[in-house]
């Protein structure tokens, strides 16, 4: 059993959990993820490692309550335990001193971006970070991101905080005004990552994205996590989750995320009425 040792509400529907898993914490690196199950009937869901504490033997993960399992997870409290927690999975980010780089995070994607940004800063890069959310109350980890960035810019869709508009507006501005951007990291919703690669493409700035396809095992056994990168099929769980954003087939990625849409609704409906009544 893997105990939840601390919880924090970062924004409505976005929660931070610190989970005791010393073996995972000992090996975790920025860019990797874990897979957990809430209970015996539970689904295996992947979540990025937002932080780790090797001394305390804990992993921090930040998640958005969007469907059946993440809501069930969010309902747990400090002291509760998860049945399964496996990791660290996937390849770690390739951290180098590139020079000037931009880290772009959207929504809950800021969480996995944070340890990567920190590592890039520690590697000597000049880090410009751009984070965004739909509105101010959904923005997470602002202080943490500021502490590991040379410059931090904020965008909200509704203009309730920072620039009114998208992170891509700010990114374009940075590339044009500052110039010499060597690398861009982008993590967030698929549509946002696609927009970022569209923005950087004309300037030919290498852009790394973190793919979040549907997964089952996370060890290269099932092939559920297929993504097409440069017309080659890759398994995001072992070859990724980070890929060259300019080579990703985004339409395919978006389509594949919708595979179980109907079933997800059924699971939630069953949960809300207690299930078993046959009403779905």
């Amino acid at each position, binding site marked *: 059993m893997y105990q939840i040792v601390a919880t924090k509400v970062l924004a409505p529907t976005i929660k931070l959990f610190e989970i005791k898993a010393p*073996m*995972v914490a000992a*090996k975790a690196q920025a860019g990797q993820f874990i897979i957990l*199950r809430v209970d015996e*009937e*539970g*689904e*295996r869901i992947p979540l990025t490692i937002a932080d780790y504490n090797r001394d305390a033997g804990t992993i921090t993960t930040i998640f958005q309550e969007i469907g*059946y*399992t993440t809501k069930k997870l969010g309902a747990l409290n400090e002291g509760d335990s998860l*049945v*399964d*927690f*496996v*990791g*660290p*999975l996937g390849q770690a980010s390739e951290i180098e001193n590139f020079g000037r780089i931009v880290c772009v995070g959207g929504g809950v994607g800021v969480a996995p971006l944070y340890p990567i940004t920190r590592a890039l800063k520690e590697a000597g890069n000049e880090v410009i970070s751009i984070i965004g959310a739909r509105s101010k109350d959904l923005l997470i980890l602002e202080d943490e991101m500021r502490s590991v960035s040379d410059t931090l810019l904020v965008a909200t869709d509704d203009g309730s905080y920072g620039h009114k508009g998208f992170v891509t507006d700010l990114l374009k501005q940075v590339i044009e005004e500052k110039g010499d951007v060597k690398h861009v990291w982008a993590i967030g919703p698929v549509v946002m990552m696609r927009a970022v690669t569209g923005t950087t493409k004309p300037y030919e700035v290498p852009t790394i994205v973190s793919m979040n396809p549907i997964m*089952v*095992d996370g*060890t*290269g*056994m*099932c*092939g*559920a996590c*297929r993504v*097409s990168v440069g017309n080659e*099929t890759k398994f995001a769980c*072992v070859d990724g989750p980070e890929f060259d954003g300019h080579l990703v087939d985004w*339409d*395919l990625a978006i*389509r*594949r995320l*919708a*595979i*179980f849409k*109907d*079933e*997800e609704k*059924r*699971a939630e409906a*069953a*949960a809300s009425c207690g*299930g*078993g009544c046959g009403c*779905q």
Partner: protein
Amino acid sequence: MPIIKEKTPMPSQDPQERSRNFNEVALGYTEEMALKEAERCIQCKNEPCRQGCPVEVDIPAFILKMKEKDYDGAIAKIKEKSNLPAICGRVCPQESQCEKYCTLGKKNEPVGIGRLERYAADYELNKGVTPPEVPASTGKKVAVVGGGPASLTAAADLARLGHQVTLFEALHVAGGVLMYGIPQFRLPKEVVQTEIDYIRKLGVDIRTNAVIGKISTVDELLEQGYDAVFIGTGAGLPYFMDIPGENLNGVYSANEFLTRTNLMKGYKFPEYATPIKVGKKVAVVGAGNVAMDGARTALRLGAEESYIVYRRSAEEMPARTEEIHHAEEEGVQFKLLTSPTEIVATDDGWVKGMTCVKYELGEPDASGRRRPIAIEGSEFFMEVDTVVMAIGQGPNPLVPTTTPGMELNKKGTIKADEESGATTKEGVFAGGDIVTGAATVILAMGAGKKAAKAIDEYLKNKA
């Protein structure tokens, strides 16, 4: 007494009914049937049946105990060699192993050795398995990587020799293909777990959620004080055909399809949270055990039509005869000498069908099987909405690529001595599908057994 020519038939669920439920298909012998079948064995002095058994079960001896109604004695005999009898009794390809060599089989049907094994094992499972005696500790520690039949066998044998064994499994339960691949209706998961509990009772420390290569490498295990390592990580990497449309919504690897259903209990969705989506017309490409399991599972998940699409003929199908037979009975349709060249999409990216070509068989190739040749101009469209790729699996690279100094074969399998499982790296042994490529449960167990023996020798000679 005249010889009964035919094997005592084993009762099974009605095909109509069973093709819609996940309960076990074959129901096992009653005591009366078991005795009748055991009577058929003529107790050959030269024991030809034994040469076909990769773990050398003393077949005539256990059948003799059965004849004497000494079922405890029978299962004890089997367990001298096999740690997983209830599993073997259900899924071993007996027709190409022990039963192939049975004297009776020369003129009539061979003795139903597998069915008798299953009877003895189930007898014990029903009664409650007595935990075995565990010998005094040798003080040596062995790490076993993976939780499939190769690893479970190696772990059990090493524990019986007094070594302290820790088994690391990547998934949340041990069992390997027995848990995630082979369906409930063929091998109930409760049976697998009971046999695994037995291995736990031998003192094996089973650690699930532990991916070796990530949480620790093989080198790190050796540094942590394990005196030897056994690698049994299987052939879990699904192959695809490399044809257009394979990433469409509705195309699964057999591994994903079966894992969602078996390991994650997708057939009980939404009580179990993992969904599995299956359409009305399902095509399973391939004709091995994996493909049969896929096609039969599709029916049980509600498909109206389920097809096996295979580019050779019925004769070459690699699946066990019994499985092919069961699939036919349940209504699986066979599209032989046929292979897809493209999977075609609807406007919103779901499978709408496959373009296929017909094949004919040419001269035998290197594998001895006649080579399939595409017939020009034979393209046709097959309307399906779900495709399951069951064309084979390769070795999972996680451990091989993180273990420097351990040589691999061209296909990425681990190079290991056939007799001992010794790899080119000192203290590291390997066996099962990760060495041979996708094979069978019993061969994996045989490899685990040989490796356990060799590891024991190695530990004795190691200071």
